[in-house]
Structures are given as structure tokens and as C-alpha cells.
């Protein structure tokens, strides 16, 4: 079915779908960065009380559109109307004044202020004498949080809340400014399933009040759960706008990628070899008595909800977080706790879950980032053989099809998916010494096309006889690529499934059963640990 027809049909449907004046109507929006047309004559509108999903690969133009909506970028062409009035934002303050609020992944809240203060940030109620009216401040926060159905004490320090709760505070803050359109940029990327349910309940409440949501996400299942309409972008153009109920996931992916993705998970059966990674009774940083083995050629998936400790595993085994007890060995060689260098020498690699925090060195070039862990390969006594280093790096740029203008480009200017591939290359460059590669959520914030490539790489590495430990909070990918799946809850392994026995329901059950009773006791320790590492930074 052609994309044109669906595009035009969406045009025709609009009056039917939006009986009221659209909250936001954008026509022929054009945005040109010198050298790149980021948006090409894009139409986009949002009806009151609807959830409009925005889909597209990294670099398709979603973020540019959001920034134009938020008043961060001026547009280079086209018109923009908010509730029927033509507008021209000269900055984010204008957008907020018109009732448009963007909730970014990195929340702009102040951790050392109370929830109440954060809700009214920038617009505190005042007493007659001009001082802050604290009772009114707290009252306003309580009302707004209540309207969203949230039980958050307005006097808590924001920093003490979980990310999910902080996000809801940000939404309450938008309401305090009479928002009629809230843009959410990948709001669930750090949330557990229960927290996602909660967020969706809040979104429904907002819709009933007539607040419209623009929902940006890579996760198709969420779009089917929550969105009324979906707009897909590719290469700066709108491919289609359609009612979600009239589309199939397969269509969405095709519109996004521009071709059929034959197989997202190219899992091919391989031979298992000797045990490579042995973990016995490992305890520390919130983990309790972990024991398992990864064999050569095996992909072991570790599934758990947010806070279950799956991202701590890699860090603890690798020595980046404290290990208090237990044994870790690679090919029979024990690894000393808390010394990443020792782990690397003995053949471990770790792709950390947070690219920004402990993966990328932002001021440095693509090449330097890539060879950071393998420089000794290119070093004679003490001199770096620059040419050889460059050759190896450019080889990986080609092999992983990393999109960068040059090796000397600073890595901060690459898209998330490409940054992630550079970090994978950092370990692949150690292929000769690397025996076990641990990956913590390697596809978080990565678009569908790059995801498929990352899965393909993982499969390929396993075939060369490497052991892979793959930590993820997303069930489909775990089911898709793992030979064996361990499930974690509260820092313990609660179940282990062979590939053929694992189903979504079983994994969820093992990850959640009687979670409520013990959640309270395990979360603080993990959080304390995180606070400690944050402080060290």
C-alpha cells in the first residue's frame, strides 16, 4: 500500500477526527541547517485530548520538530498555529506561555529543592510583601499532584524520588503553567512496567482534561497501547499520519526504516564450548549471591525490571562497582575485585548501560573513543603507531556502518545509535584478547535499524567463540537473541530458562512475584550505591 494514499487519507480525515480547533497545527514546516535539510515541508497537527505518537529513526527529524514546537529552534518556513492563533516563538518561554511543555529525557528539575518548589519552579506564588508564599506553594503542588492521582508528598526533596516520580512531577509542573500540549520525549526509557502503567494512567487523566500529548518513542507496543494517531518521519519528511488502529507494527517499521526489516533478531544456532565466565556467590553493590556460567559461543540474557540490579551485574563482575564476596573467573583465571584493568587484561569487556556517564569521552574524537581500551595494541614500547590506529578505527567505521563525517569528528556530535556502535567497536578492537563481552542495555535509545545491526553483531561475536552476557529490561530482545535467560529480582537470580522454555509471561512472573514485599528493602541499597558512585564522579 502506498505511502501517498495514507498521507492524503490522513489529510482528509482530519476534520472528522478533530472536531475542535487543533491545539497545534503546523503547515509546511521547513528547517534547514546549513548543509542539511532537517525538515522538509512537514505538516503536523495535534487535536485536544489526543495522544499523537511521533515515530522515526534517530536523525529522522523528530527532535528537530520537537525543538521547533518547544521554541528552541526557529523554523525556516511554514506556519504554526496554537489553538487557531498563528504563533512565532522566539524562545522556550513563549512556548510555555502558550501552554506547550516538553518533558525531555533529562528532566530540568532541581534535585535539592522540594517537590512543591519544583512544581512551581520559575513562577512561585508570592505574599503581598513579595516573599515566597510557602503555604500556597505547597497547596498548589498538592492539588496538582492530586489531580494526576499521585501520592507524592510535596515536601520531599526531589532528588529522593525515583526517576519515574520525578517525571510525574515534571508533568505536574507543566499543568501548573496551564499546559494544553505536553510533548514527552521517550518517557519510558527508564521506567519499570508498573511505572509505565502509572504514567499511562496519568496520560489518560490528562486526555480527559483535554490536554494533548505528543508521544515520542521507539517502542511500538507502547504506541499501540496509548496513542490515538501516529506520525512517522523518515529523512526529514513526514511519511504518514494515520490512526493507530488502522496500522500494523510491520507497516510502522517499514515506514520508519524505508524497507522491510527481514529479521530483527538474526539468531543462528551455534556450538557451545567450554565455560568461559564463571561466577560463584558474587555479592556486593546490592547483588546477592550470584552464581552462573557463560560458555564459549553462548549468549546469556539477563532480564529484570528497573532496580532489579541487572545493570549492576556487569559493573560488579568487571570491578567498576564494589564486590564484597564471591569469585569471578574468566577461563579459570580469577579476577580481582574492583580493578577494571585486571578484568580487561583477563579478557572481559563491558559496555556500560549509560553512554554519557561511563562510556563516552565527549570531548574526544571518534577515533580516540574507539581505541581507548585497546591502545596497547598500537603501542610500541611507548609510542603510538598512529597510522595503524587510524586504519583499525576506519575499518570498524566501515564494518559497523558508523555514520560519521570523519574519524576526527568529536563523538558528541554523533547520534545515539552511532555512539553506541563506537562503544561496541571499543571492545571489538580487543577481539584477540576478549573472551567475554558483557553488554548492559546496549540498545537503549537506539533506533530500529541500528538495533538490528547490534543484534547481528552480538550473534556474530558469539559465533567466533566469544561468550556474551546481555542485560536488558526489554523482553522481546532478550527472547530474541539469548540462548539462556536468567531472571533477576532484587539483586538475586530468581529463575533460569533455556531459550525454548522462555516466554514473556514466565519472565515477567519470575521478575515480579512477591516483589511488593521486598522492593522497599532492596531499592534503597541500590540507590545508595548509585548515589555513592555519582558522588565519586
Amino acid at each position, binding site marked *: 500500500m502506498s505511502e501517498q494514499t495514507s498521507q492524503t487519507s490522513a489529510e482528509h480525515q482530519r476534520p472528522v477526527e478533530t472536531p475542535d480547533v487543533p491545539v497545534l497545527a503546523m503547515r509546511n514546516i521547513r528547517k*534547514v*541547517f*546549513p*548543509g*542539511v*535539510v532537517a525538515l*522538509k515541508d512537514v505538516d503536523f497537527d495535534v487535536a485536544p485530548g489526543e495522544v499523537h505518537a511521533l515515530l522515526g529513526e534517530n536523525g529522522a527529524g523528530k527532535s528537530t520538530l520537537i525543538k521547533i514546537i518547544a521554541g528552541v529552534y526557529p523554523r525556516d518556513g511554514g506556519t504554526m498555529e496554537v489553538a487557531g492563533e498563528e504563533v512565532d516563538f522566539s524562545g522556550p518561554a513563549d512556548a510555555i506561555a502558550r501552554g506547550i511543555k516538553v518533558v525531555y529525557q533529562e528532566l530540568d528539575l532541581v534535585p535539592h529543592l522540594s517537590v512543591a518548589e519544583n512544581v512551581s519552579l520559575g513562577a512561585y506564588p508570592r505574599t503581598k510583601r513579595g516573599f515566597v508564599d510557602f503555604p500556597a506553594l505547597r497547596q498548589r503542588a498538592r492539588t496538582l499532584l492530586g489531580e494526576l492521582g499521585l501520592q507524592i508528598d510535596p515536601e520531599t526533596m526531589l532528588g529522593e524520588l525515583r526517576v519515574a516520580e520525578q517525571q510525574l512531577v515534571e508533568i505536574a509542573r507543566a499543568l501548573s503553567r496551564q499546559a494544553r500540549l505536553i510533548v514527552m520525549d521517550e518517557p519510558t526509557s527508564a521506567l519499570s512496567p508498573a511505572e509505565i502503567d502509572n504514567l499511562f494512567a496519568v496520560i489518560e487523566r490528562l486526555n480527559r482534561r483535554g490536554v494533548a500529548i505528543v508521544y515520542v518513542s521507539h517502542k511500538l507496543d507502547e504506541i499501540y497501547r496509548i496513542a490515538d494517531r501516529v506520525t512517522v518521519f523518515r529523512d526529514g519528511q513526514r511519511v504518514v499520519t494515520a490512526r493507530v488502529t488502522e496500522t500494523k507494527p510491520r507497516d510502522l517499521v517499514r515506514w520508519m526504516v524505508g524497507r522491510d526489516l527481514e529479521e530483527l533478531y538474526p539468531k543462528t544456532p551455534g556450538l557451545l564450548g567450554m565455560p568461559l565466565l564463571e561466577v560463584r556467590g558474587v555479592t556486593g553493590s546490592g547483588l546477592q549471591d550470584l552464581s552462573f556460567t557463560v560458555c564459549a559461543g553462548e549468549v546469556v540474557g539477563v532480564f529484570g525490571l528497573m532496580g532489579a540490579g541487572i545493570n549492576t551485574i556487569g559493573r560488579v563482575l*568487571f570491578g*567498576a562497582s564494589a564486590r564484597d564476596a564471591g569469585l569471578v573467573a574468566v577461563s579459570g583465571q580469577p579476577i580481582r575485585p574492583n580493578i*577494571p*584493568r585486571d578484568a*580487561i*587484561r583477563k579478557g572481559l569487556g*563491558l559496555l*556500560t548501560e549509560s553512554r554519557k*556517564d*561511563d*562510556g*563516552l*569521552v*565527549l*570531548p*574526544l574524537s571518534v577515533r*580516540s573513543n574507539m581505541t*581507548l*581500551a585497546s*591502545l*596497547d595494541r598500537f*603501542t610500541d614500547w*611507548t*609510542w*603510538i603507531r*598512529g597510522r595503524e590506529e587510524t586504519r583499525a578505527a576506519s575499518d570498524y567505521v566501515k564494518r559497523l556502518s558508523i555514520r560519521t*563525517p570523519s574519524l576526527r569528528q568529536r563523538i558528541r*556530535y554523533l547520534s545515539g545509535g552511532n555512539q553506541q556502535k563506537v562503544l561496541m567497536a*571499543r571492545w571489538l578492537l580487543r577481539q584477540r584478547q576478549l573472551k567475554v563481552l558483557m553488554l548492559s542495555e546496549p540498545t537503549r535509545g537506539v533506533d530500529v535499524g541500528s538495533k538490528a545491526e547490534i543484534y547481528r553483531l552480538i550473534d556474530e561475536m558469539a559465533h567466533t567463540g566469544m561468550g556474551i552476557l546481555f542485560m536488558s529490561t526489554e523482553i522481546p530482545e532478550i527472547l530474541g537473541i539469548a540462548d539462556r535467560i536468567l531472571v533477576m529480582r532484587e539483586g538475586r537470580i530468581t529463575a533460569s530458562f533455556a531459550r525454548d522454555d522462555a516466554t514473556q509471561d514466565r519472565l515477567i512472573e519470575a521478575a515480579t512475584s512477591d516483589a511488593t514485599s521486598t522492593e522497599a528493602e532492596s531499592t534503597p541499597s541500590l540507590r545508595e550505591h548509585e548515589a555513592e*558512585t555519582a558522588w*565519586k*564522579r
Partner: protein
Amino acid sequence: MEALGDDSRLAGATLNRRPAWQRWLVPLARHEEVSLFVLFLVVSGFFAVLEPGARRGGTYLDLLRDASPNLIAAVGLTLLLLCGEFDLSIGAMLAFTGVVTVSVFNATDNMWLGILAGLLTGPLVGFINGYLVTFQGMNSLMTTLGMMFALRGLVYVWTNKTPIVDENGFRDFTRLYQAEIGPVPVPGILSLILIAVVYVVMTRTQFGRNIYAIGGNPTAARVSGIRVERTKLLLFVLSGTTAAIAGLVVASQTGTGYFDAGVQGFELIVIASAVLGGVSLAGGEGRLVSAMLGVLILGMTGKGMRLMNVHITQQLVVTGIVMLIAVYLHGARKRLLESDRRSS
């Protein structure tokens, strides 16, 4: 593919909208060293117009001599800044090293012993700073600030605030500052050698590369197998050592251990010079040669004013203003490059 052609035409159009002067500046701005060198030429040109004395070639050789303590100390300090740490104790080190050196001269009547003792103060103090910062997790700003007061106080107590004069009058020692090899002053040669060696280390070795990684993101560096603490400790030792060498140069100027050497914000001027040369205070960004040009720009400002007999208090005002202008230009350059980057 018709669409692609459309894009590139558009891109060309936007590029041409850029004012002509900006297009001229972009290639200049892209090379940090070149733009700093141009700034240096502007400053020297300014003085050359106003003051005949600044037109002689010898003035620039003198500048090399005058600025050598700053150049030498800036080498160690720049590396420390690059890895994300500070050293405020280098001004007090200047006095400490000088006083120790000359005191040992007088106590032993042996020049080499004195120089050795003076040189050893550097790694010693640097090691203490580094140990406290890296292994005790103390903040480097506060640690070295404490060290600065402690050392200065120690020097005052020791000397009773009187200069310690070299009783032997070692001529060889004062030649360190005053002599020339060919036309070039010895301390200038010393600085250039040091800069050259460290430059090669920074650009060609793993150690140099690691410094940038540590400054850019210490946790990422650690997880990539770099020994962050050890490297930082070493850099503190290096910073102490270059400060001690600078201290020797200052002491050899007069053959005196002067208790107030470097008291007028030597450490801050060196930090400012490095930052003026584009070294980021957050670490991870900056180049050694640029930092050295930063030292020379501030050095030339001082030198020019001394030639014009500007009063010392007024010199301070002008130096401050030059610094502000330079930092402004640095920011303007970054913005220009950033807007240009989008077009490439």
C-alpha cells in the same frame, strides 16, 4: 535523488548568506594555535607602534627569558588541568624551592647539592598533593589551596621574612638565568626543551592520550582500563616538579631565596594563561602549545608595559583587561566554529 540536489543547493545558499568577514575568520579560528599566534602578533604590534623599544628583535628573546618561569610551570599545570585537577600551590612552591636551594648552598657550600635539594621539593610537595587528592578523595582546589598557605607560611617562618642571600655567590647558578647560548637565553632554551619533550609525550604516547580521556570522563577512562589515580598522582608530581624548576630559575635571577617570590598570584596567572590558550577548566580539552601561547600573550603584555614604564599598579589593570578580552575572543571563536560545524 532529485531531492538530494535540492538539499545541496539550499546548503550553498545558506553558506553564502554568512557575512564575508565570518567566512574569512572560520579557517583561522579552526586552528587554535594560529588564532592565538595572531592574537600574540596583535599585542606585540600594539606595543611596537607605541614603543620603539618593542621593535627590536632582542625584545622577544628577552620575553622568552622573562616568561620562562611561567612557561615552565605552565607545562606541568596544563597537564594537570587537562586531567581535570588544579594546583594552586605552585606560587608558594616558587618561594619554597628558592629558599631551600639557597639555604642548602649556604649550609653545604655545594651548588649541586643545593640545586638537587631545590629540585626535590617539587616531586615531594606534588606527591603529597596528589596522594591527598587521588587516594584520599580530597578536592584538588582546596587541597592545593591549603598547601599554598602552608608552604608560604613555612617559608615566612623559616626566613623570618628576610631574603636569603647566596653567600658563596655561585656564578654558575646565576648564569642559569642570565647566560645565553648563541642569542637565546638559557632559561628560554630550558623552557623550549621541556615543552618539546612534553609535547611529544602528549601527542604520541598512550600516557598523553590517557590524560585527555581521564579529563574528559574519568569513569569511562577507568572502565576502559586506564589507571586513573596513578596517572593523576603522577601529574601532580610533574606539576610540582615544573614549579620547582621555575623556582630555581627565579632564584637564579638574583642568587637569592626570596620569601615573597610568586606572591602576586603566580599560580593564578599561570592558570589564566593556560585557559587563555584554550585549556578547559573542566578538563579533557586543550593543547600544550596553545597554553604556551597563552603564557606568551600575557607575558608580552607585561613586557610591553614595562618597556613603556607603565606603573606596576596600572600594569595590573591592563593585564586584567587583556585577559578578559582574550577569554571573550575564545568564546567568540567557539561559537563561530559551532555555527560553522553545522554547515560542514
